[in-house]
């Protein structure tokens, strides 16, 4: 065992009487204080207090216990290794439990918002402002855009060749119908009829667009771009279907009508 280094501080053995004159106790004490001042000035530690403990500490502990009990109450059966995540912890249905999904919006607004996204496909040629330019015709103010919906649906779904409504001939517009859902078609038609300065103010509904896709599939030359002659002959009419009040409420995601007050 390594003894404390007493030799550095010459001092008497405390068990022997103080007889040695050669050693000055005060001097050795001073030296100790000088060299290990921080240690020498230390006070004793004592953990033996007996002050009365305030009741509010126990009251606080009781509150903590209650809070802990709330957590424990969710634990179900203890040491049940077959019971996994508690029923009801996760949402079964997005519309359950007060979460009603996104709030309904006006039909025209909802169709326009969705249509603007679908129009992303058309921007490359017709431009973000719908004015076309160069080799591409403008959608703003176009008679065929603002006119009969059957004609417009056919052009979008199958493309166009030959002269346009203004009589001018541009290049061939390729068919856009592949993979296009009735919702996409309805919303993009509504969008171009009400954007770029166009103010038709009506909504081409999903039901109308569904009819349009059927008509397109029933064409004799299905998939071929249309010409002015075919459009004037077969498609100079509106798509069948009930009109929708532009101010009616629809779900912004599905575009399905939503009953008021729900």
């Amino acid at each position: 065992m390594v003894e404390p280094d007493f030799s550095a501080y010459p001092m008497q053995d405390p068990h022997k009487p103080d007889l040695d004159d050669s050693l000055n106790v005060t001097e050795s004490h001073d030296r100790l204080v000088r060299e290990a001042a921080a240690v020498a000035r230390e006070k004793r530690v004592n953990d033996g207090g007996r002050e009365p403990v305030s009741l509010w500490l126990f009251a606080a502990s009781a509150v903590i216990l209650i809070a802990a009990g709330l957590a424990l109450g969710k634990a179900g059966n203890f040491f049940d290794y077959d019971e996994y995540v508690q029923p009801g912890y996760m949402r079964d249905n997005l519309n359950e439990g007060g979460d009603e999904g996104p709030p309904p919006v006006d039909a025209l607004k909802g169709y326009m918002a969705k249509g603007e996204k679908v129009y992303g496909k058309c921007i490359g040629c017709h431009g973000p402002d719908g004015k076309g330019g160069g080799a591409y015709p403008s959608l703003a103010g176009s008679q065929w855009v603002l006119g009969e919906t059957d004609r417009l649906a056919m052009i979008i779904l199958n493309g166009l060749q030959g002269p346009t409504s203004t009589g001018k001939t541009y290049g061939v517009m390729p068919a856009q119908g592949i993979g296009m859902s009735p919702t996409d078609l309805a919303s993009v038609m509504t969008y171009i009829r009400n954007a770029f300065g166009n103010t038709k103010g009506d909504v081409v509904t999903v039901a109308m667009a569904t009819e349009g896709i059927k008509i397109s599939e029933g064409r004799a030359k299905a998939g071929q771009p249309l010409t002015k002659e075919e459009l004037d002959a077969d498609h100079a009419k509106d798509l069948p279907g009930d009109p929708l009040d532009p101010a009616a409420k629809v779900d912004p995601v599905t575009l399905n009508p939503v009953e008021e007050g729900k």
Partner: protein
Amino acid sequence: MATLENDQDTILRASIDRSLRHPVMFFFTSGAAWLAVAILLGIISSAKVHSPGFLDSCPWMTYGRVTAAHQTALVYGWGCQAAFGMAIWLMARLSRQTCRNAGVILTAGHVWNLALSLGVIGILAGAGTGMPWMEMPSFAWMPMLLSYIAIVVGSMVQFKVRPEGHTYISQWYLMAALIWFPWFFGSAHLLVHGFSGSPLGAAGVNAWFRSAMLLMLFAPVGIAMAYYLVPKVLGRPVYNYSLSLIGFWSLAIIAPWAGMQKLTGVPIPNFLPYLGAFAAILFAVPAAMAGINLLKTATTDLATVNESPTLRFTVWGLIFLLIFGLASVLLNLPSVMRITQFTISGYGYDVLGVYGFFSFIAFGAIYFIVPRITRREWLSRRLIKSHFFLSLYAVFGIALVAIFGGLMQGVGQETFTSAWEDAADRVVPYAVMTTVSWCFLLVSNFFFFVHLTLMWLRLGRRSSHPTLLVEPHHHDPHGPEGDIDNAGPAVH
């Protein structure tokens, strides 16, 4: 009054301090250096939360790696090493035994640092395990565990051969921490790296381990140190002895159950997360017992608390312990838990525990221990004050802002019909505040590190007067306190 017995006691204490000088100073200075590394990495990782483009071209500096390296450096570089330094010194002092294996401890300390350095480099190189606080590649844990055993085995022997009589409350806490650490560190790493179990099981073990580091290493060591420092500097008995014991035993019973609450909603047996939440909430009881017991002791002499660097840090560490306990209650309530589970709240909670509570007490301990083992006084009250205030503001800035910001983030995430980006946007102001706070901490710890390094180089003040945080009395009959050599010339 100078008596022979007092002097003998002083000599014994001075010999203990001298025997531990090199290992303890090594752990403190190395810990402070790692703290600087952790803070630098913390600034980078926090900046990436609000400015994702920052340093994004360097794969070593991607968010996932930097955050993991930051937490590893903070926990194992600073936290553990500060805990080792405090534990071996305090156990030697309380067991009244000099250290006889300083060389072994010093060697083991270097092994620990080597393993940790390679581990952190491994994380930054992309070999991290992806499990928080167990991020280091699997080669690191075994040398760290072995060096840990070499570091503390002497302290356990010292406790065993201590003089008969009263066992001081700090010794209870220290022995518990010394025994718990190899248990949870070894078993957690063995379960994760040693056996090829289910990754879900590994995630559970990891969550438990992380909680154990806070509640079964940092909490008991910090509380043990505070139970020593407060009565020691004040020279007053601890407020109530029974309260100390209740606090200790409640921690011992509660702490091992906590941790799994991080996995609420995960397909593990349902009772585990809620049992974890139960224990995590109950941790507030031992935290309050220890915190209030010592704060009641400290309030008997607030003037001394104010002027002593040791007590200022320690008392604020205890206040943070109470806030830490409160945060444990609030964040682990089942209704709050599901909101904050995937937010920055957990990070704020960890920083509150590691930096707010534990590190403040560690700083207090360092300001107490270093003058004793180097036999020099701290050089400058201004450096200490800057360290104190900047750290205090920074902890509030990081911990409380992150906890609250996490709640806001969680509320944003719960409104699932709006874009995820909206929830992320809510975090930005809090993340900016966190980055600013880490910058505060960098300045704060620059002062601390410089001061500590000067002390380590034995360039401290030779004086018999402690460095206190009050203005000096210019008309003191004993001369200005800051005088070099005012205790007379050195004898050898």
